[in-house]
């Protein structure tokens, strides 16, 4: 079956009921997408399907036939949000980071702190206490330093 992966047409031979997560990691060799809980609770495996964040651990690969899939690798290594996660120390152990970034990337312009919290409500982080993550996302979206840095 075929789908578009990080902008390039891709064909995989996976079992149609294989999880998208496993196909990305095992067959496509894209190990940036992490498995956390494996049941849709933690968001570590978040990727975009047709522009919307989804848990790749829940999706049978047959359901992305012809769809547009973007993983953390699709952002390249130099995306401003990646730098902000580093600079604000929004990444500590790093397991949640790719999923956090893929959930945040779908946010519209000039979000409020509440918008950011809602967009990331499906992503769990056990290290940072979230504030550093919210700061990174707010700064990426052009919220002035003073406002973003005031996030407690």
């Amino acid at each position, binding site marked *: 079956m075929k789908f578009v992966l990080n902008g390039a047409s891709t064909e995989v031979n996976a079992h149609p*009921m294989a*999880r998208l997560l496993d196909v990305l990691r095992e067959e496509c060799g894209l190990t940036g997408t992490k498995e956390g809980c*494996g049941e849709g609770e933690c968001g570590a495996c978040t990727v975009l*399907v047709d522009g919307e964040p989804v848990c790749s651990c829940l999706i*049978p690969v*047959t*359901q992305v036939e012809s769809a547009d899939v973007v993983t953390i690798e699709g952002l390249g290594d130099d995306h401003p949000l990646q730098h902000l996660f580093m600079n604000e120390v929004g990444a500590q152990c790093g397991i949640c980071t790719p999923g956090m970034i893929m*959930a945040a990337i779908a946010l519209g312009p000039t979000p409020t702190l509440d918008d950011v919290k809602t967009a990331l409500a*499906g992503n769990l982080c056990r290290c940072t206490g979230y504030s550093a993550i919210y700061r990174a996302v707010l700064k990426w979206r052009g919220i002035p330093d003073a406002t973003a840095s005031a996030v407690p």
Partner: protein
Amino acid sequence: MRTAISELEVRSAASLGEALTILRDDQRTPIAGATDLYVALNFGTLEPRRFLDIWPVNELREISMKGATLSIGALATYTSLIRSPFVASRLPMLVEASRQVGGPQIQNRGTLGGNVANASPAGDSLPVLAAVDAVVVLRSADAERRVPITKFYTGYRATVMRSNELIVAIEVPPVEGRQWFRKVGTRAAQAISKIVVAGVRAEVPRIAFGSVAPTVVRVPETERSLAAGATIEEAAQVLSREITPIDDLRSTAEYRMRVATNLLRRFWIETG
């Protein structure tokens, strides 16, 4: 993954007609947004190994007005319910309920038809649908029938659906009166409800609870007592005799009973 993928088998349907033909000839379990599929397989609570993927059936995604009736296609996701102007104007408490399902990732895949078919007593949308007397539209290759949501469930995780049928839509008649929804879980997002309630404040109020019985339930005696002019404390007494919450891994019967009666009071105060 605890489940061997090689045991699983799936066919995909591109259209409703094709899906119904497959179900007529072959026993398969439909899957839509699949948000519970691997969870249930890995927990050992899902027996079937042969599936019918209906996610590609775009004709089941439509949310529209049919006269005065709001018709929601079975594959409408929570995200599309949140974004729909028809749902916002006709059934705003369904928008509220949809926002409280999982997180955005689940809202992007989970469907209203899936929530109904899944038949969990904790399904977040179900009290909303029960409180407004929504109708489940079922179709097989040969026939279509309409079942009120309050008659759809026959017991814990059991429904009147036949194996050759699909839910194609949920129909919501016009709703008079103020709508109210509240979910109580461990945290705001990503929590399965301990208790969930939806109400419509009208001359005869309509109130439905989830997670207090084997299925979603209306509470007709409580509704009648309020309509007859009982005080809210009297009605809370009626409610406590009418529902049968249980202890389970998410909460206790005692806690649920106390919260249910408190939610009834809150509904009455906030919609008064």
